[in-house]
């Protein structure tokens, strides 16, 4: 149960907006590419996560329901 953020690694260009919006779940590596925390997302962050998905300039993020 719960939702996780998935990154399309081929699309991702390292703009980094996702980490600005959702620092609780996403860090950036030394080159600006996202490192997503493992595990399901706490409910209170799902709305912000949706915003991060919509804000990605190259549409590289999606929310997936985890098993």
């Amino acid at each position, binding site marked *: 149960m719960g939702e996780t953020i998935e990154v399309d690694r081929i699309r991702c260009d390292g703009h980094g907006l996702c980490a600005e919006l959702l620092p609780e779940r996403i860090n950036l590596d030394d*080159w600006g*590419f996202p490192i997503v925390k493992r595990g399901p997302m706490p409910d209170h962050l799902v709305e912000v996560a949706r915003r991060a998905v919509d804000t990605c300039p190259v549409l590289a993020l999606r929310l997936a329901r985890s098993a």
Partner: protein
Amino acid sequence: MELIGPVTESLATHRQRLGPVPALASDELIAELESSRLLGRGGAGFPVGRKWRTVAERSSGRAVVLANGAEGEPLSRKDRSLMAARPHLVIDGALLATRAVGADDIIFYVGAEHQAADAAMRHALAERQDIRGRAQIVRAPAGYVSGEESAAVHFVNAGDARPTTTPPRPFDRGVGGRPTLVQNVESLALAALIARRGHEWYQDRGRWSGTGLITVSGAVNHAGVQEIDFGVTLGDVASAAGGLRGDAQAVLLGGYFGGWADVDEQWGLPLEPRSMRSRGLGFGCGVVHFLAAESCGVEATSRILTYLGSQSARQCGPCVFGLSAIAAATQRLAARSPQADDLDRILRWGGQLAGRGACHHPDGAAGLLRSGLELFADDFAQHQRRRCLTVSRPERVAVA
């Protein structure tokens, strides 16, 4: 020798030696493979029976079988040796797979530079009546990632041997958008033997159940492909390769996506996928490479990471930037002219790579790096101080 030999086996010899392939129903065949507990031999070690079942459930009779003989692993020779010696066994396995999963077309994906394998497969296909019009050979471009399953499918579909984002996985949408079974050629050959002899035959082989091909190289007297019954030890394999040349200081198991291991620790332990997994090692594609005593483990690790960095498909940021930065830092360490925090940085970067590519290229590189940092920990620390434990070369003197 079931899987290798000195000459290419003709169709007549093949039939005489092994007899016809039994006409098992799809369910029976998949059940045999599941009972055999055969694991895939391309490197990932996924259970073969479960993979066939997954495709069968989706195929509606229109799946594709992609027999993967790209063998991009630089230290592996076993797939090309198998195809050169026993092409008909590989074809049998592919034909069985079409029946089991409900496929009509077969693609033999053969490394473009593996000429003996390519010639043997072409000749063998021309000899077969039972496959006419349904099979083609596609030459896999050179390169480490060309054989990755989504890359293989992408190449057949669009001439581009770079991995694609998954899902969709090939078993859902592969060649021509059809469900596709991508299966290593050795796995197919073993499936053809299990279909003839039953899963008991496979399970009864060796102390650890099973049989397979490995490629032995490095500090041995006779490098080459060996057919082993699982349960033989690293020491047995070294003996069969004519013994070690001097003291090996480490062994690379599983290939460039595998890891370094201590020779003495592993010497008496079985080379077998499940047993190795329980020891934190990978059987991978069966590569066993002994590092000579006089070779530096830091240099060897750096060479492999540099190669893997060069083989990135250059699609995903963490692989393009992270892997090449790691490779560059290990090169500086190997040359004993590191930047102040190179060792700390590769530890941190290495820990960030896994799971961050469209394919598992960065994961494989991260695993190899981790094993090198563990096994050669002291030497890495020395290299950060511009010294080397293995090679007693004088320190580089700065020239004014």
